[in-house]
């Protein structure tokens, strides 16, 4: 009896020591988080229940009025729809092109892989605001792209890329994807490097061609990380803002106005009174939408990757 107590005491002492260290390690992050992040987030929820212009005390509590007003505004639903169109287009384009690039750049026999990776990663590191301005000039009616198409004889009349509602959205998706493909490519490369070399060798011995290897070995093995990439891409693209703000300003005639832009328009109204309470409510709705979508996708990720291996960071067991 006495012996047993002693030994369990010993183990728990060792463990307790470890636990204390673990808490010490976590403490700084907790302090920083609760110290600097929680208050602003909570306040942004509080604002959504007030009619508040962004200055002065919060006096005019209006309950759910901001929310009911938003849900009946057709301009909100327009922005909501645009956000989904953008997200869908962006997700398909960026994920697929990034995958192709990653497959090509993963070939160990390819010389200069590092240079190519840097080149294709370059747009990721640039500030969105600058890209918007540069692209506006390139895709303007008299910009480089139209002049180029004319020079090679593809068109003879300039195309108004930015003032046609459909073309403007397509352009937005293409440029948005161009900007982010570099990072998605890195994610895919990561996935490709996780596939053990032996698997390929075994396939080779079985006489599989490169297409068959891709179709029946590589792609299925990429599924788990693919699901994670999907989740990250969707969540980030629903919050698209800088690009739209600088490239189209939501135009022509609200055809590319996304939710973040809609929120911005009310929080920092260029003319007329700012409506921070209303904008906050729209922000909460956007947040909840993102939250629900990520829950659904997260469930899909979980299903696809199976219980054994959770994607990115699933190593914690």
């Amino acid at each position, binding site marked *: 009896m006495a012996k047993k107590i002693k030994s369990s005491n010993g183990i728990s002492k060792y463990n307790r020591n470890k636990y204390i260290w673990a808490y010490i390690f976590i403490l700084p992050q907790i302090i920083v988080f609760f110290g600097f992040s929680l208050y602003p987030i909570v306040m942004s929820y509080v604002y959504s229940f007030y009619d508040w212009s962004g*200055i*002065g005390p919060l006096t005019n509590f209006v309950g759910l009025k901001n929310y009911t007003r938003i849900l009946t505004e057709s301009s909100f639903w327009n922005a909501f729809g645009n956000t989904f169109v953008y997200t869908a287009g962006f997700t398909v384009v960026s994920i697929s092109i990034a995958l192709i690039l990653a497959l090509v750049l993963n070939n160990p026999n390819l010389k200069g892989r590092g240079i190519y990776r840097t080149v294709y990663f370059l747009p990721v590191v640039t500030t969105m605001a600058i890209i918007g301005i540069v692209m506006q000039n390139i895709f303007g009616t008299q910009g480089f792209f139209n002049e180029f198409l004319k020079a090679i004889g593809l068109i003879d009349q300039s195309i108004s890329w930015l*003032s046609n509602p459909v073309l403007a959205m397509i352009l937005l998706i293409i440029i948005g994807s161009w900007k982010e493909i570099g990072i998605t490519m890195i994610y895919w490369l990561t996935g490709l490097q996780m596939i053990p070399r032996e698997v390929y060798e075994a396939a080779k011995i079985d006489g599989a061609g490169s297409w068959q290897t891709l179709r029946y070995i590589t792609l299925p093995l990429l599924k788990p990380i693919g699901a994670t990439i999907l989740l990250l891409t969707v969540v980030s693209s629903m919050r698209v803002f800088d690009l739209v703000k600088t490239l189209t300003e939501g*135009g*022509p*005639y609200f055809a590319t106005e996304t939710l973040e832009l809609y929120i911005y328009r009310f929080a920092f*109204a260029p*003319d*007329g*009174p700012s409506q921070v309470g209303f904008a906050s409510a729209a922000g909460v709705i956007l947040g909840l939408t993102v939250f629900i979508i990520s829950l659904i996708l997260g469930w899909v990720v979980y299903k696809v990757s199976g219980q054994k291996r959770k994607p990115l960071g699933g190593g914690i067991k």
Partner: protein
Amino acid sequence: MKRKLVVLLSAFLLLMILAACQSEEADGDRDEVTLELWNNLASGSTFFPKLIEEFEAENPDIKIELNNVNVESSDAEYQAAISDNSLPDMFITDAFSMNELVDLDLVHELNSVFPEEAQEEYTEGVFDEGNTRIGDNIYLFPIFKGGTYMMYYNKAVLDDLGIDTVPETWDELLAVGKEVYEKSDGNTEGLIFGGTSGWLVDAFVQLMATELSPESRMDYVNGEYSFNNEGNVETIEFLKEMLDEHALSQLTLETNSTVAREYFAVGRTAFLIDGNWTGQLLEDENEFSDWGVVQLPTKNPDGKQYGEFGVSSNDGMFVSNNTEHWDEVEKFLIFLRDNMYEELVNVGEATIAKEFDLVDGEAPFEQIEDIQDIFSTMSIQVPNPLAVNPEALDVQLEVLKNGPDSSPGEILMGYLTGQVSDLEGELEAYESAYNKAFDDALEAHESVTREVFQFPDWVPYEPYTEEDHQ
């Protein structure tokens, strides 16, 4: 690892020291008073430094610190400054209205800067209720007296193409625009304006609409909003025709006012619609002087247009109620009152709040006279509900807030890109949503009735002065 920790720690220490140094610096010298001034006027970054230098030479114990804030970000900056009571001593903003600032007790009255005799040197109406004054107190230091919009033409382009009519009517503008396009093989076009600058489109469409429908926007006789009127419809239809006939450049649809001005200055279009400050920018920013300016074209040869006269928050300067150096601020304001307008004219500002003729300055370009003329014909005092009942402003603000999202300018752009097909339907929907917001606001404010907004004796295109308000 230890070494790394040492590096890490010393980096932190360094930062702490840096931070500490900065806060000490801010204290400054005790004998010297430093006043802060936030400016968001484009030309302010030119004329303020000059004025400040002069003032500091006369008053060696006062220093003025000028901070040019950017319009894009100024809302966030002002919101933050207000939320912790750190507004600068003096500031120019378009983020908030005078009423809002006064309501929150954020701004200092300026009565001692503008005694009766000083007020007389200013244009009529500048010191009216709601412009610079609320009740008995003046809160806004008037710099400009609002603005208007006009049409600029590129003389070089017209000369090159051998065109010598400067269009005054819609038909002439359309004809000349077509001529420019054809004669230059499409290399040069007729008209451009910054279609993505919403404020610009809204404002000039409204001006053009007042020819056929003087009641456009606010029907002062009946006290209700009017948007689905002949003026708006015809103006929008006309601009659409211009676009279809290549008399209005396609570039209009995708450029803002800055870029539109650049296209105009390099000779890509013959005409540009923009504000009264544009002449100065053409000279300074685009280094282009071969231009002229006329009133916006009218549908009928003798057509009249008018714009509502009013001083707004971005036309003047406020003093923070928190200022610890009111005496020095007052000194500086009086100095500005006596010297600033001359400098304004010197940099080419045409719409100064003081009587233009009483100011000595010499404009850097001669067209300033034309701009000044157009401004005085266009800018007309209209009935002011605030003069009847100051609380009318709360109603107006609420209408702005709850009114519909779009605007006639947006509808024009939608119509030009083909996204709006039922023009009148869209305007009608806009108008009724606006009037509904107005009705709701009136209902919510018992002290304000619709009569406050009704002026049966109003005559269009005629100034409605303080006496008319009784």
